[in-house]
């Protein structure tokens, strides 16, 4: 989960105002956390409208549940979970979009099926490549193309930094399924990034 600057004291006064039903507190909550949470929703659902709708669902749920907020987790963590839930709910209920065929997701032997095997070591040049906006855009596009069943696991584990048990619970699958999907999603992305970096980085060519 990306850290969001927020002090416990600020949280406490905002929570108290929300519990007291003060009108300005709702707006303050949306303005303070909305941009960050919209980013979370965008990584899980498809399309800007869907992400905004998920964010609205999330805030409405949070407003309703604020009386039950115990403060076991930070306000940011609590809102983050509610947003992930709202986004996953949207994802489940919308019509499935046709998915790109990721034939290499069906086995765990990514390396051996790669026609470019043996691989080129671009692990260090990837650090340089990551500084370029087009590389980051390419990686995001590759993540977006993953089938939802794999993409949601990858986003929750590697980007939102949920652990395996939390991810399994959130998605209603077994921890073992989380591990298998995460590994295959990473392998599929590795293979695509490999092809990209070989094509664009002359130093990465064998």
């Amino acid at each position: 989960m990306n850290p969001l600057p927020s002090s416990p004291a600020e949280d406490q006064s905002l929570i108290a105002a929300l519990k007291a039903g003060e009108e300005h507190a709702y707006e303050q909550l949306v303005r303070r956390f909305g941009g960050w949470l919209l980013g979370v929703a965008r990584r899980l659902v498809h399309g800007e409208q869907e992400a905004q709708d998920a964010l609205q669902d999330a805030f409405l749920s949070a407003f309703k549940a604020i009386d039950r907020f115990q403060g076991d987790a930070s306000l940011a963590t609590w809102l983050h979970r509610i947003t992930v839930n709202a986004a996953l709910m949207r994802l489940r209920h919308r019509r499935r979009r046709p998915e790109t065929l990721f034939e290499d997701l069906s086995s765990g032997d990514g390396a051996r099926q790669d026609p470019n095997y043996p691989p080129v070591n671009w692990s260090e040049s990837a650090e340089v490549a990551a500084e370029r906006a087009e590389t980051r855009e390419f990686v995001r596009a590759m993540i977006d193309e993953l089938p939802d069943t794999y993409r949601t696991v990858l986003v929750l584990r590697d980007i939102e930094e949920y652990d395996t048990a939390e991810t399994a619970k959130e998605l209603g699958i077994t921890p073992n399924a989380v591990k298998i999907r995460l590994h295959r999603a990473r392998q599929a992305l590795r293979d695509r990034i490999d092809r990209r970096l070989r094509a664009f980085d002359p130093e990465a060519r064998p």
Partner: protein
Amino acid sequence: MTTCGELARFLMAYLDRELPEEQRASFEQHLKACPPCVIYLKTYEATIRLCKKSCAEDARLPGAVPEALVQAILKARRATK
């Protein structure tokens, strides 16, 4: 002795330190003898870092929530209370 295919399959378990000791030793023995698998492991780890970086600084994230959305959320709240 671990094969290249097994290495690819159990890579995540290895990185998460979830392999039984014997399998881990065999895995490491394979890595010592197989430079392509070392590269595969390094690029697999680099992929995870690249995913984090690419999503952390998200060009689609303007930082603030669009004003129209703020108003829509507040309006929906008033309608449902």
